């Protein structure tokens, strides 16, 4: 979705780039300085922010809040209903769903955040350098990005995740590979976005000025241009965090998600679908957890957009 928005907007140079950079700077700094105040003006951002804070707090407190070992099965106590022992009941292996949802959340959020961060970390320099240097570098770089963007839907994810299965996977590295795959597939959008902003900024006076005073080109690109294209990236990344959670769930459904027994919302929801009729509770809690977090990131992203991007502002 965001990708489409961008790709239309990227040709809509008039609208996207007409805002003077000073105003943009002011807007960005407003967020950093008076961030909370600014955010609280947007009802959606406030609500989303509260939900996200809740998610992060719960994720951090998971070891305290959890009541059971999330991977310890007990077949004598399988498919148990909600009780004071098991707040959300138990799954088909007799594991405590409440604890699994907590640990799964910790993991899901960590992976989404890491994947988005990774996507930004490779996409932003790629895009900015491409836009800044222009010419042949830009042409080659952008054709690469366009080629990646032409993979429709989930196909790029499917290919990369299947590909990465070859590598030795254990514990942390397993998650790292998922992060890599999700982040890499996010990269082209980021690069596009960053490049669009960089193209405009590169022609601005201040960049010229820094040339004149002899700053190194690379550092100019990163130091001067980056802050000016941050706002659309923030919005995009926030909404993307929610989308990542859904992609992880879809990959789990297709058998490419987290290997068991690691708690994972998508995988747990996927496994629970066999019991949907008799024991709907198993599916409901991880399902709601996914909805809640995606909603939180979307709300917050919407709110941020109101503040940062006047074009789609809701005023």
């Amino acid at each position: 979705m965001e990708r489409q928005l961008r790709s239309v907007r990227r040709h809509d140079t008039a609208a996207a780039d007409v805002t003077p950079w000073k105003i943009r700077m002011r807007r960005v700094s407003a967020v950093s300085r008076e961030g909370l105040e600014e955010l609280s003006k947007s009802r959606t951002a406030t609500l989303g922010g509260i939900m996200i804070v809740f998610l992060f707090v719960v994720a951090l407190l998971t070891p305290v809040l959890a009541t059971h070992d999330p991977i310890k099965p007990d077949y004598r106590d399988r498919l148990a209903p909600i009780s004071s022992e098991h707040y959300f009941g138990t799954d088909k292996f007799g594991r405590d769903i409440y604890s699994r949802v907590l640990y799964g959340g910790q993991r899901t959020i960590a992976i989404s955040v890491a994947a988005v961060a990774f996507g930004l970390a490779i996409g932003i320099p790629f895009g900015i350098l491409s836009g800044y240097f222009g010419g042949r570098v830009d042409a080659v770089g952008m054709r690469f990005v366009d080629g990646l963007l032409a993979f429709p839907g989930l196909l790029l994810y499917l290919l990369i995740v299947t590909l990465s299965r070859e590598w030795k996977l254990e514990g942390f590295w397993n998650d790292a590979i998922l992060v890599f795959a999700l982040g890499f597939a996010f990269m082209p959008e980021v690069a596009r976005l960053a490049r669009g902003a960089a193209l405009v900024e590169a022609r601005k006076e201040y960049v010229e000025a820094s040339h004149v005073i002899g700053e190194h080109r690379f550092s100019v690109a990163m130091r001067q241009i980056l802050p000016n294209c941050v706002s659309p990236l923030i919005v995009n990344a926030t909404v993307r965090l929610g989308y990542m959670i859904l992609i992880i769930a879809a990959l789990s459904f297709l058998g490419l998600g987290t290997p068991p027994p690691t708690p994972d919302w998508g995988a747990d929801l996927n496994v629970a679908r066999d019991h949907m009729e008799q024991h709907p509770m198993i599916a409901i809690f991880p399902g709601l957890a996914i909805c809640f977090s995606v909603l939180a990131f979307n709300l917050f992203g919407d709110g941020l957009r109101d503040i940062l991007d006047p074009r789609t502002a809701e005023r």
Partner: protein
Amino acid sequence: MLVYVLNRILQLIPVVFVLSVLVFGFVHALPGDVIDSLAGDEAAEDPEVRAALEKEFGLDQPIYVQYAVWAGKVLQGDFGKSLVTRRPVSVELLERIPATVYLAVVGIGLSMPIAVPLGTIAAIRRNTPTDYAAQISSLIGISIPEFWFAILCIMLFSLHLGWLPSSGYVSPLDDLGLSLTYLVLPALAIGFRQAAYTTRLTRSSMLDEVHKEYVDTARSLGLPERKIIYKYTLRNALIPTVTISGLQLANLLGGTVVLESIFSWPGIGLTIYQAIQLRDFPVIQAGVLVLGVMVVTINLLVDILYRFLNPRVGLS
């Protein structure tokens, strides 16, 4: 305009080339090959047999030679044969791509008549319960995991209400009426999510328009509010909605894997997914390449349409 269009078309050539290299690279980097996957759960192939099969499939050549051979054939319109079914890939693609396009187009088509009025009303009655209801329902629409929503749909509409068949596919060319009954549930599952996107988009572009100067001018000229909204604002607000729906369509071409799998819909997404599992290289390569070309073409058309509808955008 014409120069612009021609220029854009020329730009597609390197993109498609890069896409072909990327997909070829990805595919050949996949762990294992079709010989392993055809061996299945049991029965190891001995080395001579493996060597013979690799030769037959051309897998024994250096990768760049394989690419050159493949690309050369593709340029002549020959996608080769599936290593699994041993039928021409083009035949398989011609069976599957229309099924996915059919699903995606109807899914998006279903979403529009719901989403556009909903988004418009939400924008007009901003910050009222109607607006909140529209916003919340559309946010829920994009927050539910697709496969979960699809299974819930089947349980509700098929199992409990008995209104619709649960899954399956009938070609519209064989029996349009029957085909549509099979289409409704998967299209609904797509449409719900699309409607959520479109509602949000329509709402925000309506809000954009409502605050533009011409609206004030029109008001000051005494034009009725209704006329302003429906004649001018909505029309302008629909430009991004329509164009982005076009882009959504492109994205859906490979994005319906999960739904195709649940609804037993023999589409291209499912085919490519299965081909990845089986390491059926020619099918993956041709599938992704053809879809990619469709994606960039749709993107181009949308771009041109956007410029056509919105002449303010420069033809840089």
